[in-house]
Structure formats: structure tokens, C-alpha cells
């Protein structure tokens, strides 16, 4: 079942409830806006009645796929179940009915929550202070790099390079480039971990920081982390922790104890706030004492029993977000931490690692699993064993969609050909993991016996195989002025004036 576009359902005479005429005279638009920015005719918007609009969006919503309905094995991008208690807390009027311009004395509860969340996160990752401002993960990376840059500058050093492993998340080099650094790639060793020899070769007094995810994107713990930290610190550089994979070891070990100087966390991954669909995200950054003066301002301080916003921070890199970050997400994350408790967080990570290892064993022998286990909270398989049948990772992913699962991450990390990256998380039952493994088994069998059938999947979903290549080429050709091909499938009829 598909649903036409609202434009395609438009009827010339339909309308939503009509608003009463205003009882003041309307200002002529060209008196308040320059003529050159005014449209010559109104935009062509769809015309539908209120029930039609309601049904249109309800149908689209029913086609949606979310973690509230089914398993979501998206690797390296922890998609955790969002507990209902989080929503109940975030909906409390004490949080929803306040305004960021209110006096501090009248929002002590909100400041208390920020203060407590900061200290809880400090305890989880082993740092001295945390900023809650960054609005998402990449924003957190950028914030941390700006603090590291400010630290080096305060020591009269203009370090220009940032090291990034070849298995890193794409946002790492992007954040470094956006902060004005030159990105230098560090190779992986054959075991999938960062190559110490290559790291040593790339380290120099020009290097400001090494950005590292631990466990890395292959789901492998960087067991040389203490040596890595020593090498990095010996050259005066800082060690940055990308928190995408923090779900692997909460309450078991702490990035701060491993030698990381700046630690980013994704509340929308590890701490169960909504992820995807615009979230919004929240990417707090924790720092060790040396970097504390550079934290974004304001910070929340407790003074004589009162909570205050501290703007007097001369070395601060400034605000990185309007007001105080995505506050509603902070409430949800703090609720999760309280509901779980320290023991609960530890158990969550241990269960996440157990689930991943169980599924890894179930998938071994069906797909290639190129790196030796055990893994941490995720693992990377490869569909290259199906290449002789003309089957690629993409086909396996589409086969999973046909079998009512969301597809795992494919073609990432780039260091594994035909990568299929799976992260089950701690909330999935053994029955769900078994059902997923059974689906993989069925797909692999189909790949060998009837590859053509697999090539045509999914066929029971509202849309089948999309022609991604033609779409991408058409859009690029259009953007480069090489074609006038419309990108939208719907075009207004020439005589269709509103």
C-alpha cells in the first residue's frame, strides 16, 4: 500500500477550517518588505481538508518503522529503546512550563537537574567537568576540538594537525576540518585495531589531538589504549574520545582512566533519549582539569546552596548553543541514569556485549566475520563470501527488510569490504536475536540457491528496490546545472494557480 503525495491528492476547492477575518487592517506586504524579495504569485501548496490531512499523515506514520515496533540492529549508532519513564519526567510541567529567560532563582529545579546530570556523567566517564550544551555528537566533537585548540593556543602553540584512524566515524575528520585542522589518517593494523607503528610515525609537535573511538567501529576494544595515551601525551597532544560506542563499557571502565582528556557522549545513543528523526540529539563533552577553563559558558555552579549560571569564564570558548543545550533531552537522560542506577548501567553494558557476542557466533559461518572475537557491543560481518553468487551487502540488507527487520549499517566501516555492522543492544531478548539470526540464515541460503529472488526483494513493502544510482546521478546532474530534469516526481500543471 502506498500513499500519494499531498500535492497529488490536492483538490482545487478543498480547505481546512477557515479563520475569521482579522479585525485590524492588513499591512500591504510591499510596504514592509523590499519588493525584490516578494513572490510574484503565491506558492503552489496542496489543498486538502483537515480530515484528509490527518489521514494522509496517519497513513505515513503507520508505514514508519521504529524501535518501538521492531528490532533495530544499526551498528555503531546505538539505537536504544527509549523508556517511557523518560517521557513522563520530561513532560512534568516544572520542566515544560519554564523559559530560559527566567531568573535563576525561579528555575532552581532545572539548574539542579543540569548540575546533577553533569556530575553523574563525570562519574560514568571519569572526567572533572562536563558541558551539556552541544546539540548532537558531531557538535560535541567540534566543541572538544575547539577546547583543545584553545588549550594549545594558551600555551603559545599553534598545532595544526588532528590524527584520525582509518576506521573512524566520518564526523571525526569533518569536525577536525571544520575546526581548521589538517586531518591525518592513521592506519589500522591487520587485527582491526589502530597501528601503533603508524601512530608513532604520524605523531609530531604539529599534532593537536588524536580522535579515537573505543571500542572502535569494528566493535574491538583498543587494548593498547594506555600505550596510545602515553605516546600521544609525550608529544604534548591531547587524546579525544568519541563516545559513539560508550554503550560497551559503562560502569566497567572509564575513558578518563584510559587517559582521554576530552570525552564526548551521545545522550541519544547511550542514555536512551530519542535518536533519529531529528531527536533532537545531545552530545555533552567531559574534560579533565587542564581543559576545564576552556569549557563553553555558562557553567552551572553550586554556591551556598544556590545554583548559579557562571558567565565569568575568561578562557571559555564561548557559547556553543543558544541557551543551555537541548534541555528536554537532559531530563530524559537523567531519568534513565536514576532509573538504572550505577549497577543497572553496568548491567546494561554487559548485556549489550553479551548480545553482540551471541549474535556474532550465530552469524559466523553464514557470513564472513573477518576479525577475531570476542567483540564488544557490536560486530562487523562481511557479505564478501556471497560475491560468487552475485550477492552484495546491499542485497542482504534488502532481504532483512523483506523479513520485517530493520537493516543493519552496511558499507561501514570502510576498512571492511561489503561490511554489515550489527549492534543488538541490551534490551533484545534471546528470541529476538534468534529470529534475526534465522533471517540471516534464510537470506544466505536464498543467496546461494535463488540469488535472482533476493535481487528483487523487498516486494512486500510499500516500495521495492529504489534506483539509488539513477537518483543520485540525476540529483547531482541537476545540482551541477547539467540537466533540467525535475527532481520531484510531482509538478504543478501549468494552469494550476492557487
Amino acid at each position, binding site marked *: 500500500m502506498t500513499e500519494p503525495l499531498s500535492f497529488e491528492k490536492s483538490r482545487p476547492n478543498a480547505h481546512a477550517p477557515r479563520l475569521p477575518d482579522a479585525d485590524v487592517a492588513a499591512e500591504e506586504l510591499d510596504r514592509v518588505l523590499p519588493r525584490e524579495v516578494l513572490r510574484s504569485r503565491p506558492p503552489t501548496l496542496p489543498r486538502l481538508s483537515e480530515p484528509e490531512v490527518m489521514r494522509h499523515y496517519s497513513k505515513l506514520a503507520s508505514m514508519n518503522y521504529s524501535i518501538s515496533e521492531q528490532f533495530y540492529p544499526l551498528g555503531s549508532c546505538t539505537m536504544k529503546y527509549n523508556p517511557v519513564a523518560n517521557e513522563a519526567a520530561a513532560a512534568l510541567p516544572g520542566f515544560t512550563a519554564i523559559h530560559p529567560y527566567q531568573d535563576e532563582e525561579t528555575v532552581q529545579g532545572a539548574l539542579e537537574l543540569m548540575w546533577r546530570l553533569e556530575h553523574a556523567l563525570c562519574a560514568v566517564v571519569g572526567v572533572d567537568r562536563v558541558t551539556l550544551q552541544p546539540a548532537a555528537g558531531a557538535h560535541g566533537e567540534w566543541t572538544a576540538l575547539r577546547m583543545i585548540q584553545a588549550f594549545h593556543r594558551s600555551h603559545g602553540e599553534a598545532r595544526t594537525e588532528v590524527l584520525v584512524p582509518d576506521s573512524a566515524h566520518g564526523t571525526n575528520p569533518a569536525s577536525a576540518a571544520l575546526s581548521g585542522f589538517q586531518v591525518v589518517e592513521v592506519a589500522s593494523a591487520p587485527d582491526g585495531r589502530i597501528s601503533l607503528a603508524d601512530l608513532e610515525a604520524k605523531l609530531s609537535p604539529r599534532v593537536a589531538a588524536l580522535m579515537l573511538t573505543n571500542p572502535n567501529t569494528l566493535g574491538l576494544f583498543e587494548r593498547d589504549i594506555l600505550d596510545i595515551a602515553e605516546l600521544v601525551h609525550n608529544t604534548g597532544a591531547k587524546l579525544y574520545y568519541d563516545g559513539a560506542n560508550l554503550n560497551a563499557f559503562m560502569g566497567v571502565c572509564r575513558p578518563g582512566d584510559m587517559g582521554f582528556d576530552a570525552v564526548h557522549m551521545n545522550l541519544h545513543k547511550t542514555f536512551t533519549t530519542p535518536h533519529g528523526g531529528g531527536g533532537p540529539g545531545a552530545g555533552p563533552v567531559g574534560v579533565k582539569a587542564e581543559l576545564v577553563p576552556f569549557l563553553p559558558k555558562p557553567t552551572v555552579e553550586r554556591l551556598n546552596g544556590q545554583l548559579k549560571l557562571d558567565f565569568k569564564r575568561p578562557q571559555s570558548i564561548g557559547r556553543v548553543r543558544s541557551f543551555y543545550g537541548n534541555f528536554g533531552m537532559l531530563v530524559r537522560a537523567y531519568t534513565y541514569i536514576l532509573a538504572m542506577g550505577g549497577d543497572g548501567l553496568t548491567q546494561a553494558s554487559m548485556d549489550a556485549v553479551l548480545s553482540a557476542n551471541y549474535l556474532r557466533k550465530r552469524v559466523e559461518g553464514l557470513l564472513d566475520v573477518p576479525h577475531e572475537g570476542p567483540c564488544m557491543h557490536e560486530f562487523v560481518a562481511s557479505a*564478501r563470501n556471497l560475491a560468487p553468487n552475485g550477492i552484495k551487502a*546491499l542485497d542482504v540488507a534488502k532481504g532483512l527488510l523483506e523479513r520485517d527487520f530493520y537493516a543493519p549499517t552496511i*558499507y*561501514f566501516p*570502510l576498512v571492511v569490504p561489503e561490511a554489515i555492522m550489527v549492534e543488538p543492544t541490551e534490551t533484545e531478548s534471546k528470541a529476538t536475536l534468534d529470529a534475526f539470526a534465522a533471517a540471516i540464515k534464510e537470506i544466505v541460503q536464498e543467496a546461494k540457491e535463488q540469488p535472482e529472488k533476493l535481487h528483487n526483494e523487498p516486494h512486500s513493502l510499500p516500495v521495492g528496490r529504489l534506483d*539509488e544510482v539513477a537518483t*543520485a*546521478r540525476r540529483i*547531482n546532474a541537476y545540482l551541477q546545472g*547539467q540537466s533540467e530534469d525535475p527532481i520531484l516526481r510531482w509538478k504543478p500543471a501549468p494552469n494550476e494557480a492557487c
Partner: protein
Amino acid sequence: MAGRLYTRSHEWLAVEGKTATAGITDFAQSQLGDVVFLELPNPGRKLAAGESFGVVESVKAASDLYSPVTGRVTAVNDKLAGKPELINSDPYGDGWILKLELSGELPRDLMDEAAYKQFTESQK
């Protein structure tokens, strides 16, 4: 004209006197899959051996392109903007990417056909 030379980052180079033509290898295009977009430099740009000069993008991945040699860009294959699929269909012919005016020696780590073949076997 001598045989093509190859880099570990899967570019090829065909040298003719002081000029050279470069592109990505058949192995590279087969690993990338259908190419949908290329970001390429303007003629006149000076490149150092190993320097990133552009990006090739497929629906699977975006990869940096690295200059196999030091030199100045004299021409860019402008057909690729409208037909990136030439990289897939004819990587050593109509899918060429750059022409360069060479300066200095060729890097020593460029591989010949046999060595590159062995290198890609180890990558599979």
C-alpha cells in the same frame, strides 16, 4: 609509452615524456560500485605526490583521490561531470580523470601492473 603505474590508493598513471594521465583503477571502481559524483580540481592547480585532489562518490562510499605524482594539473576530464559512469565502464580510457605536467622524479613506491595485481589480490 611505458605501461601504466599504480598507487597503493588505487590510482593509475600513464606517463608520456613530461606529461601524465591519471585515473582510478578497475579494482577501485569495482570496489566502489556505481559512481554517482566526482569533485575535481581546476586546471592549473599544483599537486604534491600523495596529496588529496578530489573525491569520488558512489552510493556506497565517498573516497578521496590522491595524486600519484607531483605536478601541475593541465586538464580535467569534463565529461565526468555529466557522465560519472565512465569511471565504471572505462576506467583506463574515457574514464580518465586528470592530465598532469610532471615536475621532478616519479615516486619510488609506484607499482607496475604485476606488482599492483599482487597488491590487489592481498586486498580481497
